[in-house]
């Protein structure tokens, strides 16, 4: 029960991050939102594992944490290189 409530709470945060990703306005706001969404996905998977009483799923959460970080750094490297990083929106 606690876990279900926590999972729903995390989903609310994910929704808020998603809204920020839709709204922008700058590229960096979107990247920030994606990063936040990724972190929340990691937490959601961890909580979901406990909710369904199969916490072995945590390996996926670890993979997500790794991929999220590497992805964000890769995206930023790209943005910095692209015509001084000035993107329209």
């Amino acid at each position: 029960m606690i876990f279900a409530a926590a999972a729903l709470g995390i989903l609310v945060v994910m929704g808020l991050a998603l809204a920020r990703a839709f709204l922008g306005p700058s590229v960096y706001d979107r990247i920030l939102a994606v990063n936040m969404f990724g972190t929340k996905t990691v937490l959601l998977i961890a909580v979901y594992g406990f909710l369904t009483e199969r916490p072995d799923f945590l390996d996926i959460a670890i993979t997500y944490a790794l991929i999220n970080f590497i992805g964000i750094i890769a995206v930023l490297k790209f943005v910095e290189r692209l015509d001084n990083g000035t993107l329209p929106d």
Partner: protein
Amino acid sequence: MTHLIDIVLLTFLVATAIAIVRLNSLFAVVMLFGIYSLITAGVFIALDAVDVAFTEAAVGAGISTVLMLGTLALVGHRQAPQQHSRALPLTVVVITGVVLLWGTADMPRFGDPEAPVHQHVAPRYIQDSPAEVGVPNMVTSVLASYRGFDTLGETAVVFTAGVAVLVLLGRRRRQHRDPGSSGD
């Protein structure tokens, strides 16, 4: 309770898809594709398909984002204005969707133990694979041993595709750099 989580995740998925269709900035679209992959992986986890979720996270959110950004660096990051009407693509998509939904109509219920998939070879894998192959993870032993040749073929295809993408992206970049090698 888990149903509610499924519903929320699927709602996010639809909202992201609509946003992807409506946005013009291709960079924002790539970012949203990353989120889309994360949500899809969440759905896969809810469906107990942990291995698929693993792949979705690594390929969808990780590698393909990087590859798409590499492509954007070559082609520019604004979407060209739409010239022709969208009626035809919409019809095709709707028809395909309806056909797919119709195709799932007579499939066994999700997780049904009486389903044909769970009756044919699955029991053999489940009972004998630890002794026959000696790898604890059943999916790994199926992929790497029982279906070894199939996996070899898949790996060859993915490898070829990877080489092709690298050749395309790498050669263009060198051409770009050659004229003005001093800049950037």
